[in-house]
């Protein structure tokens, strides 16, 4: 039988399953792009304002780490500096999730077995997943290019921007295809692929932070770590700078290697098996496992360790750059303004503002973790083992609280350790922020993350079918309204909807107990209402 038989049908099936999800990614990216373009045009209307901002940014490794290397001073180059890296990440995540969803997830659920028994070739499933991911990336690239052209930006830069995003997304689709062959669980494959996106972003950041400034004080030539990262390759296309079209060849080469490797692996393994095999587990459950909380901890611990480790690494990186912020940016009003906007305060000390802005980022990360952890309630319930667990002498509230405890505890650990890591690194670099202050600054973000958690529990109790969509939408809106509200120019009333707008920007301002107590109360009330609704509703089949 032809190894590709049935590919067309599987592509149509995959496209139909993703008919809502992928358009949301693509349209969402285009909307973010349009908002970003409008914001840049609004905030930096003159060449002069952009030069000032970029000159300052170029001197700060921290800003370069977060954003990328500036490529020029026109409007497009400013947009590149502000939005390009995040668009590349978005394309990469969209692609990895899509490929794993249509390969390993299918195998895990047994759908692939049913499909494979039909007149379907051995390579059809993987091919269909890759074709779908490629199509999505082409559409994403086209949508971004179109949005940029509509914003009145030059054609070649717009095209390079869209093409770089599309090609980078495809390269990550290739990486995910390999991960899906290696790991037996879809979760593990997704985690590997998502971690590779994070590592690629970080490598690029390190390369940009260590980059060499041109004589004009604006353009930065990235150092070698950037060249190890597929996201870095995308950045090196430098849209709206002097475009380097040849850099597009690097992700394409990675893609070719990955696709070839994935198909070789498909031929070598059995359906359902991974190349990294399972070890036998314990024959009996240990004491620590045998309670609802023990079970929840077991289900969440790998993810908690991952998020906490990532936060600590990120925290140390942020902390080690703190002392250099002052040298680079004292006279620079543009960056000053940017950081003040992120931190949501007009504090005097630039280093304090920098740390306050970074703590806000950690708060968002913690909220992201919390959403991911609490959605486990949904996967356990819908077609999962929750039915059997709730058929034992475990009450619904106790069951849900066990998961909530893991989510809240994990978020607290992330924030405290990220803050502590930043404090220690700052001290090592000669800063004087103090470990206790930054740990506290991290923990001050916890009530905001818990408010997002409370909302997820509320939706889980009240509208269980929509919980996935609403939970992520709430997080996205909290970020948009709270963290980026100022950057995007939203009115204060809208910004106040986000819990992140109410967190005191420690250490830029002093700790005020009022907002923290209020956010905690809101979080508790939301969660309590959600638990009550959950207790009163039918369990999903």
């Amino acid at each position, binding site marked *: 039988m032809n190894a590709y038989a049935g590919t067309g049908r599987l592509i149509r099936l995959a496209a139909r399953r993703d008919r809502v999800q992928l358009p949301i990614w693509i349209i969402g990216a285009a909307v973010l792009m349009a908002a970003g373009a409008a914001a840049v045009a609004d905030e930096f209307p003159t060449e002069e304002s952009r030069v000032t901002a970029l000159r300052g940014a170029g001197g700060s490794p921290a800003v370069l780490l977060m954003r990328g290397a500036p490529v020029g001073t026109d409007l497009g180059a400013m947009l590149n500096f502000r939005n390009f890296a995040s668009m590349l990440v978005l394309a990469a995540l969209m692609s990895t999730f899509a490929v794993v969803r249509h390969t390993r997830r299918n195998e895990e659920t047994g759908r692939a077995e049913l499909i494979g028994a039909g007149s379907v070739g051995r390579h059809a499933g993987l091919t269909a997943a890759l074709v779908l991911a490629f199509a999505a990336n082409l559409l994403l690239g086209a949508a971004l290019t179109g949005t940029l052209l509509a914003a009145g930006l030059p054609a070649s830069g717009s095209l390079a921007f869209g093409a770089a995003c599309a090609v980078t997304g495809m390269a990550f689709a290739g990486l995910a295809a390999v991960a899906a062959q290696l790991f037996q669980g879809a979760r593990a494959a997704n985690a590997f692929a998502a971690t590779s996106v994070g590592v690629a972003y970080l490598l690029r950041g390190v390369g940009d932070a260590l980059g060499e400034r041109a004589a004009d004080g604006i353009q930065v030539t990235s150092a070698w770590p950037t060249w190890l990262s597929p996201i870095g390759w995308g950045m090196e296309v430098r849209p709206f700078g002097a475009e380097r079209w040849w850099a597009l060849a690097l992700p394409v080469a990675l893609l070719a290697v990955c696709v070839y490797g994935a198909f070789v692996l498909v031929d070598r393994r059995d359906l359902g098996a991974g190349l990294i095999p399972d070890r036998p587990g314990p024959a009996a459950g240990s004491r620590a496992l045998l309670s609802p909380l023990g079970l929840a901890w077991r289900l969440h611990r790998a993810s908690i360790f991952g998020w906490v480790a990532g936060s600590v690494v990120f925290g140390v990186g942020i902390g080690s750059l703190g002392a250099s912020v002052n040298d680079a940016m004292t006279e620079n009003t543009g960056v000053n303004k940017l950081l003040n906007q992120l931190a949501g305060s007009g504090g005097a000390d630039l280093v304090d503002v920098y740390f306050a802005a970074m703590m806000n980022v950690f708060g968002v990360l913690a909220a992201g973790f919390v959403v991911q952890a609490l959605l486990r309630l949904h996967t356990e319930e819908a077609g999962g083992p929750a039915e059997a667990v709730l058929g034992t*002498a475990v009450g619904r509230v106790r069951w849900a609280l066990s998961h909530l405890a893991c989510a809240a505890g994990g978020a607290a650990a992330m924030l405290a350790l990220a803050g502590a890591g930043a404090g220690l690194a700052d001290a090592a670099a000669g800063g004087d922020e103090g470990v206790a202050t930054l740990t506290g600054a991290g923990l001050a973000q916890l009530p905001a993350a818990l408010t997002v958690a409370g909302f997820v529990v509320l939706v889980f109790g009240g509208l269980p079918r929509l919980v996935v969509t609403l939970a992520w939408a709430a997080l996205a809106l909290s970020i948009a309204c709270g963290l980026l509200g100022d950057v995007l120019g939203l009115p204060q009333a809208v910004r106040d909807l986000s819990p992140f707008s109410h967190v005191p920007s420690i250490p830029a301002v002093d700790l005020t107990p009022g907002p923290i107590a209020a956010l905690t109360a809101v979080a508790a009330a939301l969660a309590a209402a959600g638990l009550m609704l959950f207790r009163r509703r039918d369990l999903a089949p």
Partner: protein
Amino acid sequence: MNDAISATGLVKRFGRTRALDGLNLAVAAGEVHGFLGPNGAGKTTTIRVLLGLLRADAGQVRVLGGDPWQDAVRLHHRLAYVPGEVNLWPNLSGGEAIDLFGDLRGGLDKTRRAELLERFQLDPTKRCRTYSKGNKQKVALIAAFASRVELFILDEPTSGLDPLMEAAFQQTVREVSADGATVLLSSHIFSEVEALCSKVSIIRDGVTVESGTLASLRHLTRTSVAVEAAGPISGLAGLPGVHDVVANGTQTRFDVDSRDLPGVLRHLAGFEVHALTSHPPTLEELFMRHYGVEASR
């Protein structure tokens, strides 16, 4: 009343569909009760109401003397449930899952657990994701039967088991029944229900259509009779309760309502009968009678 389960007039709607439409079910303490019905008849919905996972829109339901919706946790200490589709955590081992379910229910009997692992030939060190459907069911069955509880609610528990394991399952049900436990067994396997159950309820479209002992259900129905005689047997069709007479020379086949069997036997005594076989309706025939007609309607 000494019923382990009693449900009257249960109604459960999902949107516009009425999954249960006035269902009645009574299971006396200590009996093994078969719960039959085609796919979609409402068996699983009923069981989920009995467990307090769903709330009935109307009707009364008592399980072990309590209200399953209000007292779910207290009641679940005293019962064990095996779902129709066993979902486990992919990265836990089978042994861990067994201990977890047992412990969440209030503890399990270690000796019994070891004995059942042996009997069902389950390797407890394998990760749950590698288990087949039958092996997942074994995990749930061992966790349930290793618990010392008063009531077992089993939703098609053997649909993935092989015949050897089916025998092990029947042996285990007999053991817990001998110890005085009550069992509600939803099943599609007639031989299993006939072998295990003293009483049976048959449901269709969310309504109970038959309920009683197997003997009493048989009594309501027809016995198939085949007779071999020296010559044709005349006058059969005119007798009360006789149906579907097929005569073929010396061979005659017919069905007779169970209560009219004595009259038919007296009639047959007037002929030179060489051989006579009769068999009571199997559960399958009972079931098909209820559904076959409806299906072709």
